């Protein structure tokens, strides 16, 4: 990403004479706009289907996005730093296959979770070494590893599937912490807080922004660019491993085609959340709201009996339109000034 797009797309930042008040800036922010969209979809859904406004139904709806959102948090940091990881869904497939293979030998739940997360970390480290260590472009590398990771699942499983997971393993994907709050949803909230603090309140988070805005300046200011990028790939692998545990536990089985196409939905979620695909800008709050928007849209369409592949048209359109709209708006603003 960084090698392909810097140089020509980085526009010069204009510094206004006077900053707007915090309140007006908040009103004009992408996050608030997105929040309004989320509220509008929520209202539209409750009007369109009588089954929508029900605590348990809404709780079910969260399963649509929690696993993808877990990965989206790490992906947001990666994209802000100017890289991308298209292999996340393939990591889920490989981690799930590893857990499935271990489960057939009768391994208990703690061991399975360790294997799932361990596989995710190993895959993330592999991506990290290739991108940060060998300085290769992350788009092609992760297209390659995407093929490799899922390919290994296909070699292991072929057209078979793993089942026979221990009974208590199902808790991660199907269990509830309290009342309607599922384990996945609570994990989603906790991880949102963790990544929010990491990105917005730590040195590491600031370094991520600097690297995304100007990798060269980052290096001159003494930021260990390669190490930060490696850690980000590791984090993305970790979150993919955790998502694999949740998804496998929820489905109770593993096929090599598990989570097919999720990389697109994760990237869409991140970009919809206001993270610049060119790097350097974005917030975790935006990603959290984007997760809700996508979850509500797919759940609402599901209640209206829209088939999955048609929903993917909406997701694709959502991705392009959300990126195109600010660009068109900026054009119009420019045209007015001139």
């Amino acid at each position, binding site marked *: 990403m960084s090698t392909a797009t810097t*140089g*020509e797309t980085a526009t010069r930042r204009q510094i206004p004479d006077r900053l707007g008040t915090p309140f007006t800036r908040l009103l004009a922010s992408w996050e608030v706009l997105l929040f309004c969209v989320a509220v509008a979809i929520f209202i539209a859904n409750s009007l369109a289907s009588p089954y929508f406004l029900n605590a348990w139904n809404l709780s079910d709806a969260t399963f649509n996005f929690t696993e993808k959102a877990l990965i989206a948090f790490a992906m947001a940091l990666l994209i802000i730093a100017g890289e991308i990881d298209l292999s996340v869904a393939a990591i889920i497939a490989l981690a799930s296959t590893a857990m499935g293979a271990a489960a057939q030998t009768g391994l208990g739940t703690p061991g399975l979770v360790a294997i799932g997360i361990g596989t995710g970390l190993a895959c993330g480290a592999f991506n990290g070494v290739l991108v940060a260590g060998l300085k290769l472009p992350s788009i092609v590398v992760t297209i390659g590893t*995407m*093929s490799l990771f899922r390919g290994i699942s296909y070699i292991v499983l*072929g057209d078979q599937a793993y089942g026979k997971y221990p009974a208590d393993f199902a808790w991660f994907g199907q269990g509830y912490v309290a009342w309607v709050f599922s384990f996945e949803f609570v994990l989603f909230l906790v991880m949102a807080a963790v990544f929010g603090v990491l990105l917005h309140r730590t040195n590491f988070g600031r370094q991520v922004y600097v690297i995304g805005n100007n990798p060269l300046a980052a290096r001159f200011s003494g930021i260990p660019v390669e190490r930060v990028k490696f850690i980000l790939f590791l984090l993305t692998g970790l979150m993919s491993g955790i998502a694999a545990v949740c998804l496998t536990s929820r489905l109770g089985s593993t096929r090599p085609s598990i989570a097919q196409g999720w990389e697109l939905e994760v990237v869409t979620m991140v970009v919809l959340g206001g993270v610049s695909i060119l790097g350097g800008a974005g917030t975790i709050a935006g990603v959290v709201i984007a997760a809700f928007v996508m979850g509500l849209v797919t759940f609402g369409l599901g209640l209206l009996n829209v088939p999955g592949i048609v929903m993917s048209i909406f997701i*694709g359109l959502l991705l392009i339109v959300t990126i195109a709209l600010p660009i068109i708006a900026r054009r119009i603003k420019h045209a007015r000034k001139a």
Partner: protein
Amino acid sequence: MQRLLKNRELLLALIILVMIGGFATRAAGFAAPANLANIFNDTSILIILALGQMTVILTKSIDLSVAANLAFTGMAVAMLDAAYPGLPLALLIVLAVVIGAALGAINGFLVWLLQIPPIVVTLGTLTIYRGMAFVLSGGGWVNAHQMTPDFLNLPRLPVLGLPILSWLAIAIVLAMWFVLMRTPFGRSAYASGGNPTAAVYAGIDVGRARFLAFVLSGALAGLSGYLWVSRYAVAYVDIAAGFELDTVAACVIGGISIAGGIGTVIGTVLGALFLGVIKNALPVIGISPFAQMAISGVVIILAVVFNARAEKKKGRIILRERAAKEKLA
């Protein structure tokens, strides 16, 4: 000698020959001319698609929507042929190219006029186009008995010992060589990827070059849509799923730099043939076809590592970049 060894295309050709020789020791008939012609024919569609992909990559973009474009166009012409058997085949083929080019133009338009990164645009249109194939067909199949014999047989007709599909691939290879090496568009494609700033100073419209590259890639994908459907005698929503990765792999193996501006037509053809030989050899040497995906992955990664070493260092920018940026924006 050293320069010959550094010639990437020659090296790749040698590797392919060694591979064919190696496989021939395990299965006697593998290196027979008839089988090699068969492998070439089997790889023809990949070659055609990879050449379109290559043009896009040369301009520093990427087109992940080619396989979805192929699926939609293939479905469209197959359904037309099934519904109106009287339509002349030539019209259907022209239609396939036009539909493909139109879908490519949508990608190119978004990249050119809205300056959205190509990877995002084509990730989006990849799902949209395949979703459109589902909407068009309602999830149904078009089977061999519904298509007209002419529609099905054209790519298979033998001419001078080779099927028309192979001849078509050869013709497109020659045409692409001409377009990229001997036309202003081809040269501007190299220039816009190699150094966009310098290209702007040289009076090249980088955005337009990218747009045309996407249209070309779309047109070839549309043509491949017809070829795929008639060759495999079936059209359904999921045909060629994931094939976009094979086209990128063929380019990367063939030495096309993902950063743009570097690569040759013959390299891309060899990259595609490399994958084609492996694909055809797996069953021969008794490896499960399920292994193919992982092998492609390994080969892509190795090729990227190899390319990164081979790519020359970037030139220094002497003129100020600012004016060029304003031109680009």
